[in-house]
């Protein structure tokens, strides 16, 4: 079973996720105001904006951590009501976190294996004895995880507890765990935050490869605007919770409002 064969390339273009007039507030603070955009199958979609623009809130809304007070979210054609994070996961939404949320006491391999949780079906009675269909299943999942380990070039740290790894590698393991879910939509929260230049280059390459090889739709939040321009197909720009631009990198780059709100303040 190869990773590539398991995930056929999807037709780009069809809308995978549609966000319509979403507003979110915490008490009196409005984090997101009436934002709409859509994510199409197979694309790399970036959500950018200055600090406090509501990027992470937006990701948390998509992922089910937050529930918007107003607006609709349509995913795979179904308009959802309150969805909880593990339900989002069950429907093929995987994510990583800005500050790396790994199971620090477990090894790299075990962390990635947790990404397969939803795909393990055999009764735990058989799993207890490592017998019959449960054994076959376990081997299949292990194989899939090994493909990911190979893909992300982290063979060396397979058996290391992730708590001891340097930050850049932890981020890679976290990506691996998300990939193990074979997601339809992969949400990346500042995948390059806190990385050095070389690690950023590596991560960009992995993101592009994931998109190309697995056909995974990717939505990413990023602070480093240069990286975003090179990576993404389309970009949504948020500022103070409002959407101020949406389009291809070159369109966004030349947009007056974006320059004022964001590019202007970043050197």
């Amino acid at each position, binding site marked *: 079973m190869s990773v*590539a064969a398991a995930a056929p390339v999807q037709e780009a273009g069809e809308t995978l996720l549609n966000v319509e007039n979403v507003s979110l507030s915490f008490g009196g603070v409005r984090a997101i105001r009436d934002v709409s955009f859509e994510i199409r199958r197979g694309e790399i979609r970036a959500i950018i904006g200055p600090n406090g623009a509501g990027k992470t809130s937006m990701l948390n809304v998509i992922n089910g951590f937050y529930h918007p007070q107003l607006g609709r979210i349509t995913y795979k054609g179904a308009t959802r009501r309150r969805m909880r994070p593990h339900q989002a996961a069950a429907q093929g939404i995987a994510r990583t976190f800005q500050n790396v949320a790994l199971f620090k006491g477990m090894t790299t391999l075990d962390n990635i294996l947790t990404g397969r949780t939803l795909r393990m079906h055999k009764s735990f009675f058989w799993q207890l004895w490592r017998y019959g269909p449960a054994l076959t299943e376990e081997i299949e999942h292990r194989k899939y995880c*090994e493909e990911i380990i190979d893909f992300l070039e982290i*063979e060396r740290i397979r058996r290391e507890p992730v708590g001891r790894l340097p930050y850049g590698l932890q981020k890679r393991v976290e990506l691996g765990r998300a990939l193990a879910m074979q997601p339809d939509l992969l949400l990346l929260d500042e995948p390059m935050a806190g990385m050095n230049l070389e690690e950023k280059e590596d991560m960009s390459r992995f993101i592009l490869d994931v998109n190309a090889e697995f056909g995974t739709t990717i939505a990413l939040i990023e602070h480093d605007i240069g990286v975003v321009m090179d990576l993404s197909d389309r970009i949504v720009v948020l500022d103070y919770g409002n959407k101020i631009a949406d389009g291809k990198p070159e369109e966004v780059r030349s947009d007056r409002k974006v320059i004022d709100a964001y590019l202007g303040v970043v050197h």
Partner: protein
Amino acid sequence: MHSGAPREVEDTALDTFPKWLRHHAHARGTRPAIRLKDRGIWRTWTWAETYENVRALAHALRTLGVGVGDKVAIVGANRPALYWGISAAQWLRAVPVPVYADAVAEEMAYVLENADVKIALVQDQEQVDKILSIGAQLTHLTHILYDEERGLRTYDHTRLHAIAEVMAASRAMLADSTIAAELDAEIDRGLPDDASIMLYTSGTTGRSKGVVLSAGRSVAAARDTVAFDKITDEDEQLAYLPLAWVGDHYLNYAQMFVAGGCMACPESADTVQQDLREIGPTFYFAPPRVFESLLTRVMIRMEDSGALKRAIFHHFLGIARRWGEKMMDGKPVPLYARLHYALGTLLVYAPLKNVLGFSRIRTAYTAGEAIGHDLFSFYRSLGLNLKQLYGQTEAFLYVTCQPDGAVRADTVGPAAPNVALRLSPEGEVQFKSPGQFIEYYKDPAKTAEAMTEDGFVKTGDAGIFDADGQLRILDRAKDVGRLRDGTLFAPKYIENKLKFFPNIKEAVAYGDGCDFVTVMLNIELASVGNWAERNGIAYASYQEIAAHPRVYALIAEHVREVNRALAREPQMAGAQIKRFLILPKELDADDGELTRTQKVRRVFIAERYATLCAGLYDGSSSADISTEVTYEDGRKGVLAARVRIEDVETDTAPFREMPRERAA
């Protein structure tokens, strides 16, 4: 007389590698030939399967137009498919040309074009991209074959093919017995005089040259050393050396093809240490630098462990130092010492060797650089049969090697079996060897230059023979110079003495034609960093810690120690180090400062850091440098720094009474 080696080593009909391959497929078809750790699991191919795979690949290459004398480039890490590519080309009497996988595009373009490469067999997308980027310059290249498909599916496949696919197609066609017979007959057409492989020397100066080796001579050389070290089909080794280096082609390919042993390909370059433990090789080669970094790692880990463990460790290391080498060399050792050593084996040596992956090693070699006496003895005292050899691509590796029981740190052994060895009147080492090269490809002038009139090969190394006939290498003959006062200046000799300190990673010595000797140094970040941590010195980068005054003080003490050692040697006493500096960046092959085999390029470094060089000799206490550096991904940046230059006292040991006639 060579009890361990298989009988067929003497079989002179087996004079090419494909013939050996076919022989093993019949004689030991079910024995393992090659392994690869892939997706966390070791896969093994037997000699019979290897033969089948090579056969399919050979047919595929022939279908793509490869014939006698055509050149097939092999680019990538150690992968079974690439080794099969080498054999498949040899099957067709074509010439495989392994290329360093980490070569940048221009370097690769030079080699591929100079070698008239017709087909390139590469590992992955990275190499395909590199070759496609230089495609316009490659006038002979017709097809590229790749092993790993990742990222390549969307590429134009008119001249690009997956190795697995062409092999599958070939297997289908080989079902036709006439096609199969025709292909199999190619093996018998192979002649010992056929060019068997072309290895590009990295070259400390100038463009690299393609060293052409013949099939018959390659096999003959391998036969001798297989017998010398009693290598059998039970032997196994980890194939982790660069494919394009003579050491890999000799030790992993040629020797194993003759002995019928097994080579294991590591999962990736990063996992070599873990893979070594899992495989437990019986034959092992590593340059001194690898042994050194392993020792550094062990020592650092021991420093971090509890007092009791540390005490036990050091106690038994002392016992090993005292008796271990004597026991290995079969010298008389009292019974109590043997018992004490046995206890040490149980508690320390065996577990340590297991951690390092050295448990099963029967024979280990090191070469390429001088190895420090302490470092060398450390491994031998643990019971590791570590020996030295001296070799060259032009010799197909072995020129000298140490037999079991006559091993020393400061020499490289007597002439290898069937090698004729001599020193020229100027002190240059010259040899004739069974594996001796045919020529430099398309360069008769250079070929002639490398040979003496009576057919010896000039090594370009200056050496001397010790009383017991073992060769001692001093330096490159052309690098040995003189200070203005006529004192002998052997830069590498001085550099090596410095590099034996764990805190010093690289050293570059200058002095030829000058008044005194100066050095530029690289510190070893692992050990200096550890020292800094223990001494509460904070730093953010290599550049910062390299400039720290206390690091300078630390290093200055090492330099003084080297001076003391030099002062005791009559020929070298005048060449003590007067001034030194620590470079603000690590020397790097990507910046051209090191060769691909990690040797310093002294002249290049002098030009690149000209301002620093000037500072070393004009007495100033610092100098500025601004230079371009290449990052690992190929992008360039600028490094600017002010570098401190420090004076060191020289030593005046009372040696003057000693006889000086040996100096010359």
